[in-house]
C-alpha cells in the first residue's frame, strides 16, 4: 500500500508542478488542484497508513492501537474545504482577468504575439 500511495503522491505532485509552471491561467489552476490532492494524501500518510482500522473508538476500554489516528483525517477535511474555497476564488479572478485583458496568459499579455 505504501508504494501505491507514494506513487500517487509523486505523480500528482509532478503533474501539478508541471501545470503550475505553464503560462495559461487554467492550467495553473488545475496544477494547484492536483497539488492540493497530493498534499491531502500526504497529510493522510503522516498519521501512518492503516487498513481496516476505523478512526473512532466506539467503546471505552478498547485497545487504541487497533484504531487509526483520526487527527490527520480531520486535518485533511479542513484542508480540502479551504483549498476548494480558494480554488473557486481563483477561478473568479481568472475569469475577471480574462475579461479585462482579453487573454488567458498569466501575465495578462502574450509574450510572442
Amino acid at each position, binding site marked *: 500500500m505504501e508504494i501505491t500511495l507514494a506513487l500517487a503522491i509523486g505523480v500528482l505532485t509532478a503533474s501539478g508542478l508541471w501545470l*503550475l509552471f505553464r503560462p495559461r*491561467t487554467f492550467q*495553473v489552476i488545475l496544477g*494547484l488542484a492536483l*497539488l*492540493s490532492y497530493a*498534499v491531502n494524501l*500526504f*497529510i493522510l*500518510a*503522516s*498519521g*501512518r497508513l492503516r487498513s481496516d482500522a476505523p*478512526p*473512532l*473508538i466506539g467503546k471505552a476500554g478498547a485497545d*487504541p*492501537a487497533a*484504531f*487509526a*489516528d*483520526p*487527527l*490527520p*483525517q*480531520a*486535518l485533511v*477535511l*479542513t*484542508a480540502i474545504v*479551504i*483549498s476548494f*474555497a*480558494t*480554488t473557486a*476564488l*481563483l477561478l473568479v*479572478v*481568472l475569469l*475577471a*482577468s480574462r*475579461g*479585462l*485583458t482579453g487573454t488567458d496568459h*498569466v*501575465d*495578462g499579455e502574450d509574450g510572442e504575439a
Partner: protein
Amino acid sequence: MMFLKQHLIIVPIILPLIVTAAMLSINERQRMLKRSISLITAALLVITAIGLLWFASMASNSGPLVYRLGDWPSPFGIVLVADRLSTMLLLLTSILGFTSLLYASARWDRSGPRFHALFLLLLMGLNGAFLTGDIFNLFVFFEVLLAASYGLILHGSGKEKTSASLHYITINIAASLLFLIGVALLYSVAGTLNMADLAVQVKNTAPEDLAVLEAGAAILGAAFLVKAAIWPLCFWLPRTYAAAAPPVAAIFAVMTKVGIYIILRLSFLLFGQGSGGAAGFATDWLMYAGLATMAFGTIGIFSARQLSRVAGNYVLVSSGILLSSIGIGGESLTSAMLFYLVSSTLAVSALYLIIEPVQRNADEEDRIEGIAEPVFDDEYVGLAKYEEEEDEVGVVIPGTIALLGGGFIFCALLLAGLPPLSGFIAKFAIIDALFSHVVIAPPHWTMIGLIILSGLATMIVMTRAGIELLWTPADDSPAALSPIEVTPIALLLSVCLVLMIAGGPVMDYMEATTAALYNPADYITAAGPAPDITPEPLLTPLPEAAVMPVGVELP
C-alpha cells in the same frame, strides 16, 4: 475582573467575526452605518489589545495568558496564548487597522462592495495568527487572513489589480500547500500540533528522525518566508502592494510581519538553545537570505519609478533586516529588532497612506488610477466616483501642501532612520547590538553596511520624489485634502513619536519580550500539556488522540 482577564484573549478573534457576519446583512447603501460599525469595532480592538498587553506584561512572573478553547486539555485542544510578543503585535495590528479603516472611510471604501466586512475579516485572521498556540489552527487563521486579503487586493477592481492579484493568489496558495506539507512532516515525527508540546517533542526526537523533522521545519519555514518576502521569494510583493488601494496596502504592511512573527516564535520554541540536536537550525540560511533581501530591496528602492514601489521595496528591506537579525541572534539584537519591527511597520503604513494625497497634486491622471471600471456591474451599488458628497468635508486647506510636506518629511526621516525619530533609535540599536559581538564577522559588517546604504537610498529617493511632488510649483491650487485622510497619517506618525519619546520604557518592554523568547520554559509550561498527561516520545500514532472526535480541528 477575573472573568474579563480570562476571556479577553478570545475577543480579538470573535469580535471582528461576529461584526463581519452581522455586517453582511446590512445593505451596501447604508455606508455611514457600516463605516461607524467597523470603526467602532476597530477602536474596540485597539482597547482590547491594550488590555491584553497590560495583562501580559503584568503577568510576567506567571507566564503568558492561555485560553483553552472548549476547555480541552492542552495537547488535544487548541490553545490561544497571549504573551508579550503576541500582544505587542496585536496592538500594532489593531492600530494599523483603525488608521487604515479611518483613511478608507474618506472615500476608498466606496470603490467596491463589502470593503468593511473583508477588512474586519483580515483583522480577525491577523489577530488569530498572532494569538494561536496550535500550528494547524495557525494554518486556518492564515487562510482566513489570506482569503480576506485576496478580496481586498481586488477591491476597486481594474486590470492592474486583477493581474497582480492573480499572481498574489497563486503564490499564496502554493505557499499554503507548502505549509501543509511542513505541518504533516512535523506531525509525523512529533505526533502533536501544539506549539509548546512540539517544543518538548523536538527535544526528545531520536537522531534518526531529525532529518525528517528538519525537512518539515524547512518546508514550513519556506511557506512563512514567502509571506515575509525573503529574497528570492519576494518578487510578488512590490507590484501587489503598489496595485492595492492605499488603505489596503497600509494594513498589508503588517502582513509580512506575520511571517516574521511565526519564524521568530518557532525558531525560539523549536530550535532554541535547549532543543537538543536541532538547536540553531537554519540560522545561517536566514542571515544570508536576509542580507540578500536587504541588497535586493535597496536596489529596488533606487530603481523604483513610483513612490508606491519605493514603499514596497522598503518593506523588503525591513524584512531583510528583521530576518538577518533573527539569523544572527543574540538578546540585544533581538530586542533591537523588535523595536525596529514596530517602528518600521508604522512608518511604512503611514507612507502608503500619504503617497496618494501627495501624488494627487502632481498628477491628475494618477487620481483615477485607483478606481477603475467595475467588473461585475450588478455588484456595485455605490458610486465609484470622485465627487465629494455634501456631508463630507472637502475644503481646500491653505496649508495643504505644508501639511503633506511635513508628513512626507516625517515619513522619510522615519524610514531612512535619521535622528531624532524612532527609526533612528531602532537602527542605532541594531548596529550597536552588532558591534557588541565579541567577533564582528564579515556578515555583520555587511549587514551594518546594508542598513546604512538602504537608509541612504531611501533618503535620496524620498528627497527626489519630495522635490518633484511638493516643491515644484503647481499651476492650479492644490487638490482638496479631507481631514479624514490627514488624521490617520497624523495618528500613525504620532505613535512613532511616542515610540521615540518613550524609547526607554519601550526598549525595556522589548528586552523583557526577548528574555521570554530566549527562555520559553514559561510558555511551554503554560500552553503545553499538563505534566500528568505526557505523551510518549513517538513514532507511532498517539493512542490518546484516538479518543478525540473527528471534528475538533475544524475551523
